[in-house]
C-alpha cells in the first residue's frame, strides 16, 4: 500500500512505530489484488464471461428493438377526431416516464444509493483514511447502471410508441441516460444530507402512484398532448453539465454519509444482488421492503378482528399488506394500467387489453402475497396456530382475494366500457379473483431453485436444472386458469358459458394452490416409478 497521506493526532495506546496512513486507493487495490489472485478466474474465463454478457445484452436489445418497431408498425394511426375521455399516446408516454422516474427514485432510496456492504463495512470503514476514496466506486456504480438501463428502456419505449423520425433515438437515449443518472445522484445527495432512505423511497413511490392517477385525470378531462418533441442537443449538453455538477457535489460529500447509513444501504444492496443472481424474486422483494422499513411503528395494531386461529392468520396477512406502502402503490398502479390502455385508442386493441390485464394483474397479485411470502421464509405464525398446512394455504388466499376483488372491479368496469357490457365483464372479473389469489399463494410457496444440484449451461450463464418449472409456479396458474378471460377479451364478448368455465377453473386453481406438494406432477410420477423399480 503506497500513496500515503498525513496521519491525525496520536492515540494513547500505540505499541508500534507509526508512519503515514495509506491512501484509500491503495487499500482498495490491496483488497482487489488478493481477490483477483484467489478468485480462480483466468483471463480466458474472464473474457468468456464478458463475451457471454455482451452477446446476451446485444441479443436482448435487438429482440426488444425489433418487438418495439413491430409494435409501432402494428399500432393503428391516431384517430383524426379525439374520442371523448381518451388519452393520446404521447401523453401516456410522458406519464410512463414520470412513473419510471418514480421507480428509479424509489429503488435508489431503498438501495442507498451509496453503501458499503459486509466486509467493506467491517474492515474498511474503521480505517483513518478519507472515506471518499473508499466509497467512490460504490457511488459511481448505481448512476452508471441507471443511465444505461434508462437509455435502453426509454429509447425502446420511444421507438415502440412514438418515433418515426430518423436520428431521434440517440438524443432520446442520451437525455434518458442523463436524467436517470441525475435522479440517482440526487438520491445520493439527499442521503449525504442525512435524510432517511425510506423518505426518498416514499417520494419515489408517490411519484410512481401519481403517474397513473394523473393519466386517469387527464383522460377524464380530455386533455392530451399531440406529440413529444425530440430533445434538442443543447438540452443534452445542459443535462450533461447538471449531471457532472451533481457528481462533483456528491463526490465531495461522500465522507459525510454516516457509517450506519452506509452499512444499512450496503446490506440491502448485497441482499438484493444475491436475490437477483439466484433468481429469487421473493428475497428481492424482502430486501427492497425490509431494508427501508421503520424498526418501530407509531400505531400498534390490536388485531381486534381476531376471533380464533383462522382470523388471526388472515388479520396478520392484512396488517402486513397494509403496512407496506410499496405494495399498496403497486396495487394502485396495476389497477390503473389496464384502465389507461383501454382508454388510449391506439393501444386499446384486443391484444393490447389482454396483455395489459395479464401483466398488470400479475403485478397486482404479486403485491398481495407478501404475508404468504414472509410465512414461507419464516412460518412463525403458521407453527403457533392449530391449523393444517392445506388450511393455512387456503386462508392465505383470502387477503389476496379481497385485494384482487377491488382490483377486478376497477379494471373490469373499464374493460366493460371498452367492450360495451359493463355488468357481464364485472361478473367475469369477479370470477377470475380466486385464480389471482391462488396464483399469489402458489408463487409465494414455490420451492427455491436447487443450486446444490447439477447446473445447466445456458446463454444466461449456468442455471440449476428444473429452474423453469420452479419459476413458473404461480404464473402457470395465471396463464391456464384465465383461459376463459383470454377468449372473452380476444372475442370482445362475455357469455354465460365463459363465466361458468371461469368459475370451474377458479375452483381448480384454488385446489392446486392448496396443495403442499413441493414437487411437480411429473417429478412425483418419476419418483414413484423409481420407487416401484426398487
Amino acid at each position, binding site marked *: 500500500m503506497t500513496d500515503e497521506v498525513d496521519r491525525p493526532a496520536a492515540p494513547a495506546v500505540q505499541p508500534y512505530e507509526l508512519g503515514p496512513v495509506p491512501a484509500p486507493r491503495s487499500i482498495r487495490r*490491496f*483488497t482487489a489484488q488478493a481477490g483477483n489472485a484467489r478468485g480462480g478466474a483466468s483471463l480466458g474465463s474472464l473474457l468468456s464471461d464478458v463475451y457471454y454478457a455482451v452477446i446476451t445484452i446485444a441479443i436482448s436489445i435487438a429482440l426488444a428493438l425489433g418487438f418495439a418497431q413491430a409494435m409501432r408498425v402494428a399500432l393503428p394511426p391516431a384517430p383524426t377526431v379525439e374520442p371523448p375521455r381518451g388519452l393520446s399516446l404521447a401523453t401516456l408516454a410522458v406519464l410512463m416516464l414520470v412513473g419510471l422516474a418514480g421507480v428509479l427514485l424509489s429503488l435508489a432510496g431503498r438501495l442507498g444509493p451509496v453503501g458499503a456492504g459486509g466486509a467493506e463495512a467491517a474492515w474498511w470503514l474503521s480505517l483513518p483514511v478519507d472515506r471518499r476514496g473508499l466509497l467512490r466506486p460504490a457511488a459511481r456504480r448505481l448512476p452508471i447502471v441507471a443511465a444505461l438501463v434508462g437509455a435502453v428502456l426509454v429509447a425502446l419505449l420511444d421507438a415502440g410508441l412514438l418515433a418515426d423520425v430518423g436520428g431521434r433515438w440517440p438524443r432520446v437515449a442520451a437525455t434518458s441516460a442523463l436524467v436517470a443518472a441525475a435522479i440517482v445522484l440526487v438520491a445520493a445527495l439527499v442521503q449525504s444530507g442525512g435524510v432517511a432512505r425510506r423518505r426518498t423511497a416514499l417520494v419515489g413511490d408517490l411519484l410512481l402512484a401519481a403517474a397513473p392517477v394523473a393519466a386517469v385525470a387527464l383522460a377524464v378531462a380530455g386533455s392530451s398532448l399531440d406529440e413529444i418533441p425530440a430533445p434538442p442537443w443543447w438540452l443534452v449538453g445542459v443535462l450533461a453539465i447538471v449531471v457532472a455538477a451533481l457528481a462533483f457535489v456528491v463526490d465531495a460529500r461522500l465522507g459525510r454519509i454516516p457509517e450506519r447509513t452506509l452499512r444499512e444501504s450496503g446490506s440491502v444492496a448485497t441482499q438484493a444482488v444475491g436475490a437477483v443472481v439466484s433468481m429469487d424474486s421473493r428475497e428481492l422483494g424482502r430486501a427492497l421492503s425490509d431494508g427501508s422499513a421503520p424498526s418501530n411503528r407509531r400505531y400498534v395494531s390490536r388485531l381486534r378482528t381476531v376471533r380464533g386461529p383462522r382470523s388471526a392468520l388472515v388479520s396478520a396477512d392484512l396488517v402486513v399488506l397494509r403496512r407496506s406502502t410499496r405494495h399498496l402503490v403497486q396495487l394502485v398502479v396495476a389497477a390503473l394500467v389496464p384502465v389507461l390502455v383501454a382508454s388510449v385508442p391506439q393501444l386499446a386493441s384486443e391484444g393490447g387489453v389482454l396483455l395489459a390485464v395479464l401483466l398488470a394483474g400479475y403485478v397486482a397479485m404479486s403485491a398481495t402475497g407478501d404475508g404468504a411470502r414472509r410465512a414461507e421464509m419464516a412460518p412463525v405464525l403458521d407453527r403457533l396456530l392449530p391449523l393444517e398446512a392445506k388450511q393455512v394455504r387456503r386462508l392465505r388466499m383470502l387477503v389476496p382475494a379481497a385485494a384482487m376483488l377491488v382490483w377486478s372491479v376497477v379494471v373490469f368496469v373499464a374493460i366493460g366500457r371498452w367492450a360495451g357490457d359493463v355488468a357481464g365483464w364485472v361478473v367475469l372479473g369477479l370470477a377470475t379473483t380466486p385464480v389471482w389469489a391462488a396464483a399469489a399463494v402458489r408463487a409465494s410457496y414455490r420451492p427455491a431453485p436447487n443450486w446444490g444440484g447439477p447446473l445447466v449451461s445456458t446463454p444466461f450463464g449456468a442455471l440449476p436444472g428444473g429452474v423453469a418449472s420452479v419459476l413458473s409456479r404461480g404464473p402457470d396458474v395465471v396463464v391456464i386458469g384465465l383461459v376463459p378471460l383470454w377468449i372473452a377479451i380476444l372475442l370482445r364478448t362475455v357469455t354465460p358459458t365463459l363465466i361458468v368455465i371461469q368459475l370451474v377453473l377458479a375452483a381448480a386453481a384454488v385446489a392446486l394452490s392448496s396443495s403442499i406438494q413441493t414437487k411437480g406432477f411429473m417429478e412425483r410420477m418419476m419418483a414413484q416409478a423409481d420407487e416401484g423399480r426398487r
Partner: protein
Amino acid sequence: MSKPVVRAQDLLVGYDGAPVCAPVTFTLNAGKAVALVGANGSGKSTVLRAVIGLLEPEGGTLQVLGAAVDERSVAFRTQVSSVLDDDAYFPALTVSEHLYLTARGHGVRGADTVVESLLTDFGLTDHARSLPPALSSGQRRRLLLAAGFARPRSLLVLDEPEQRLDHAMRDRLADRLVAEKRAGGAVLLATHDPELLLAVTDRAVHVHEDATRVLSPAEAAAVIGREQP
C-alpha cells in the same frame, strides 16, 4: 485532570424514537475499564453502538475524547477501536491479510512483526494462510479480536468479547485488557462473563429498561449470576 475518554449523561438510545433502556450515565477515564451488564436485549449493544457512532442518541449527552461522537472524522476513527459482532470478511483475504489490512491501514510500521505476534497471541498461527470461510466461528471471533489490537487506539470498545472463546482464550483476553489499561487505554465492554468482569473492569453499569445503576465489579458479577438462566 485530563478529560474523560467517554462521558455519557442521561444517554438515551433506541431505534426510530423508541428507547430500548432507561437513560445511561457513566464516565470512563483513560487507564480504566467499564463494563455494561444486563439481560439479553436490555440495550448494552445499543449503548456501545451509540458510543462508536453507529447510532444517533435519542437524547442526553455523549462525548468521546471530549467531543461529540462523529465517526465520520478521521481523528475519531484513529482513536476508537471497536469489536462488535460483525461476522463479515473478505472471502479472498487470508487471516493474516485481514490483520495486515488493519495494521497497514492505520500506518503501523513493521506490520510483519505485529501481525506475527497477534497470530501467536490469539492462537491463529496455524490458520494464518486460511481464508475466513474455512475457520470455525470461534477462530473467526479471535480474528476480529486480534484486529482490534492490530492498530493504535485510545478507546477499545468490545461487545461480549467472551462469546465463542474457550476458557484459556478468555484468560488471555483478560490479561490483554489489563495490559491495555496499564498502557493508558480505556476499555468499554458489554459482557455476560463474571470472571472477565472481575479481572478487568473498575466499574460496571447495569443496563435495564426501568433504571440503570452504576455498580462495583463484584455487584455486577452477582447481577450477571442472577440474570443468567
